[in-house]
């Protein structure tokens, strides 16, 4: 296949056959530039179809899917992988994402045929071990949160939010209070919170943060009323702070006839140390891919089981597992229950359940609590070492699992949070979360997790302080031109959005030749 690429921004800059130096940072062509429709990496018998049952539905249009032989595929994907930074290759301190170590034991166990090669609809008598595993994981989650029920099927954190809010909506309708149409959301919340509330037809009322970066119970009380269905509060919050008035907030919300949804994105800071059920939450999703180390996988799949209070438990989605003497049954239909319905085709993210349970058993209850304490220790260590130079808008108090800074320390330097983040790439660190939460200007949200050693934290802090000094000294180029040592220089996101190119199309010349 020709490498002619007219009308495209650029062709791959080096041939597939590279010099040794370039091979360490290859510029990998697209699959469509190296494969073609005749090549294949599988060896399958070519069967004649006699007496076909396809009716008149047989394909006439071309598939246009290039194939690669196995050695070509191996090289293509290995080279692509090397263009990614990952937890295994360096510190990845993304705030609110909990990029902790992903143990390979989890991967090994999730691949056991008794877990990976079972079908969600095979007879329940043949998957008793799977149901037992789901129950066991649910028990861990209930003990860690002091709650009495858990909905296992949500496929991700945001899906868990949907689940919890649907349970709240169903509970309110069952009480004859379907008229409650407002959900309170603090302004520091993840975007998923207001999006979830709006998805269910609620209007969103924003609660401001106080000068300490937390929510005052008085602000919540002022916003409560007969039209309020729920509050969605993240705790610890996205500023990396534990909400000190959370118990008063829960009490006020309940007194007003509303429910308390807790976003559990940051549960890693308190696992085994604080039980959200003791704080008065009604529903909380737990991101297994954050707190319990199931890998992020370049963006999913995650899992978002939701723990529920006694008030909400009856409204949990189907399916769920129920003990029946010595065996377990799957309740797959809502008839005769108050379940709000089905959230997904099957039983949830079994592959993630296996990994999460493997992580829990490895750590034990004692190890999980130690992990939370180390995560908090690490974040406070970074905060202590950096806040002499970096501006901490809510300093003067310990943080939880993540340290938040704003960009006021860069004022007048000509360096933005984005520039600073890109310069970190050249120093070998994945940047922290930028420009979130929205409550501080030019936010830098750093979450080291418990997985980072003191040695790594020291190197990180040394680098950050050195970068800050350089920014203040006016060495602009180091920032505005960054990254210089990554597989790509800064990418033009405006261009991508203005004239979207979302799939590969054959170069013009090739199309003409084909016609």
């Amino acid at each position, binding site marked *: 296949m020709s490498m002619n690429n007219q009308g495209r921004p650029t062709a791959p800059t080096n041939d597939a056959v590279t010099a040794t130096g370039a091979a360490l940072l290859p510029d990998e062509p697209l699959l469509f530039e190296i494969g073609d429709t005749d090549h294949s990496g599988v060896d399958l018998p070519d069967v004649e179809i006699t007496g076909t049952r396809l009716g008149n*539905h047989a394909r006439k249009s071309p598939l246009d899917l290039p194939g690669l032989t196995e050695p070509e595929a191996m090289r293509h994907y290995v080279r692509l992988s090397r263009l990614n930074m990952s937890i295994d290759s360096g510190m990845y301190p993304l705030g609110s994402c909990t990029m902790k170590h992903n143990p390979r034991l989890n991967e090994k166990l999730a691949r056991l045929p008794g877990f990976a090669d079972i079908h969600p609809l095979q007879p329940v008598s043949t998957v008793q071990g799977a149901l037992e595993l789901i129950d066991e994981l649910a028990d861990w989650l209930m003990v860690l949160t002091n709650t009495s029920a858990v909905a296992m099927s949500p496929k991700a954190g945001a899906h868990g939010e949907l689940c919890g809010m649907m349970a709240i909506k169903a509970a309110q309708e069952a009480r004859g209070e379907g008229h409650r149409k407002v959900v309170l959301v603090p302004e520091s919340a993840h975007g998923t919170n207001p999006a979830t509330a709006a998805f269910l037809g609620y209007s969103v009322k924003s609660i401001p943060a106080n000068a300490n970066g937390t929510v005052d119970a008085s602000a919540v009380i002022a916003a409560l009323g007969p039209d309020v269905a729920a509050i969605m509060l993240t705790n610890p919050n996205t500023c990396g702070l534990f909400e000190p008035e959370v118990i008063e907030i829960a009490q006020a919300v309940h007194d007003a006839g509303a429910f308390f949804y807790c976003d559990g994105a940051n549960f890693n800071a308190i696992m085994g140390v604080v039980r959200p059920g003791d704080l008065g939450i009604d529903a909380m999703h737990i991101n297994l891919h954050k707190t319990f180390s199931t890998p992020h996988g370049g963006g999913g799949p995650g899992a978002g089981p939701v723990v529920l209070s006694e008030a909400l438990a009856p409204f949990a989605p189907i399916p769920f597992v129920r003990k029946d003497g010595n065996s377990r049954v799957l309740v797959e239909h809502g008839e005769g229950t108050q379940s709000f319905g089905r959230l997904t085709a099957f039983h949830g993210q079994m592959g993630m359940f296996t990994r999460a349970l493997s992580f829990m058993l490895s750590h034990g209850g004692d190890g999980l609590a130690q992990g939370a304490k180390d995560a908090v220790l690490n974040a406070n260590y970074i905060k202590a070492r950096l806040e002499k130079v970096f501006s901490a808008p809510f300093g003067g108090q310990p943080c939880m699992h993540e340290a938040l800074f704003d960009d006021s320390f860069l004022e007048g330097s000509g360096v933005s949070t984005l520039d600073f983040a890109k310069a970190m790439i050249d120093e070998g660190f994945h940047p922290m979360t930028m420009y979130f939460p929205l409550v501080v200007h030019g936010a830098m949200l750093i979450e080291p997790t418990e997985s980072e050693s003191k040695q790594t934290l020291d190197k990180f802090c040394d680098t950050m302080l050195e970068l800050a000094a350089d920014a203040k000294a006016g060495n602009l180029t180091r920032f505005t031109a960054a990254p210089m040592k990554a597989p790509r220089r800064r990418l033009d996101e405006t261009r991508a959005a203005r004239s979207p190119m979302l799939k590969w199309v054959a170069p013009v010349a090739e199309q003409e030749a084909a016609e």
Partner: protein
Amino acid sequence: MRYLPHSDAERAEMLGVIGAKTVEDLFAAVPRAALQTESLNLPGHQPEYMVENHMHALSGKNRAAGDGPFFVGAGAYRHHVPASVDHLIQRSEFLTAYTPYQPEISQGTLQMLFEFQTQVANLTGMDVANASMYDGSTATAEAVLMACRLTRRNKIILSGGIHPHYRDVVRTYMGEGEHLVCLEASPEGQGGITAEVDDATAAIVIQTPDFYGHLRDVKSLAEAAHAKGALLIVVVTEAVALGLIEAPGALGADIVVAEGQSIGNALNFGGPYVGLMATRDKFIRQMPGRLCGETVDAEGKRGFVLTLSTREQHIRREKATSNICTNSGLCALAFSIHMSLLGEAGLTKLARLNHARACALADALEEIPGVELLNDTFFNEMTLRLSKPAAAVVEALVAKNIIAGVPVSRLEPGKPELDNLLVLAATELTSDGDIAALVAGLKEVLA
């Protein structure tokens, strides 16, 4: 604890730098009443081999699909996945990376997503695909909501051939009411979809091959929908079928959603899977989920970024097209690698092989007294009407180590007319011996 790097001496040293006496001081904001002073009632940490023993014991209580004849489909299919796929998705750089928000150091994930989007668009015959959804069922619900936004109408008609669980998920997402018309189960044919279409209709939703295995006439339904200004959503739960049947995009579909598990992904008891979603160019801005697009870097080199994010929750908050935040990145990667290995030639062969195995199965089953095949057309899945309730038949065959399929009553309880129906599938992994065992078992149980 083998995953925690600090020694006690290091912890003490760090506390000194922080200026705290104990780590508990760092939890000062937590109300004292809520702070755990006792350890929770949970087992303590364990060495790796003990965790393995525990998990092996649980795994051993399940009957793996590969342990004998196995004919369950109904939205999840047992296909062979080449060894290189599972090796590659476990590369650290793919497995332990995050969402590619820093594109300069995430080109591996981004280029893979761009390739995946192209593969999905080509496979479905559509202009553009997103970077994946949780699974086929949630993708279907999102497609329905997307159609409502696009048409500014809210009536949805679900065909009686839709996977019942997909129908239930759409119900959950949309709420019950007159706006949602779910046609009666149609194990034998088309049902009266077109009669329901009116000026209030946002979309018709059909599945092909449908839950009962029938191949559906996409073209005439597209015409019926378009005549009233409605959209046609086509659902595919067996992606391999698209190697052999006409692409929905070539027949007038407006949105195509699919379960991509069949390609590259194990059964995993129902998850994680990978939802595919593809549409026409003009509908892009109402499509939920992540999108990866091509651009250039500061030196003019080609590169990829997540784009059109103003549709998404992290930018638009309560005005977003969906609350979805993630995709099924690693499952999409598995799909994409397997699809690259197959290529057009391999996928066509695989699809033909599946169809041939299903034809062999149908031919053998039709000979059995007490078995009626309901399908004129199918790809690799079909529906039988048995002379006895299907649930009891399936349970009786478990004793013979045969997993015969899914009784329709498991998904559609309380409908006696469906009690004797069995949905079953064959794939390339279905051997002549498997078919012979099922035939012998059925003969015995139905006698």
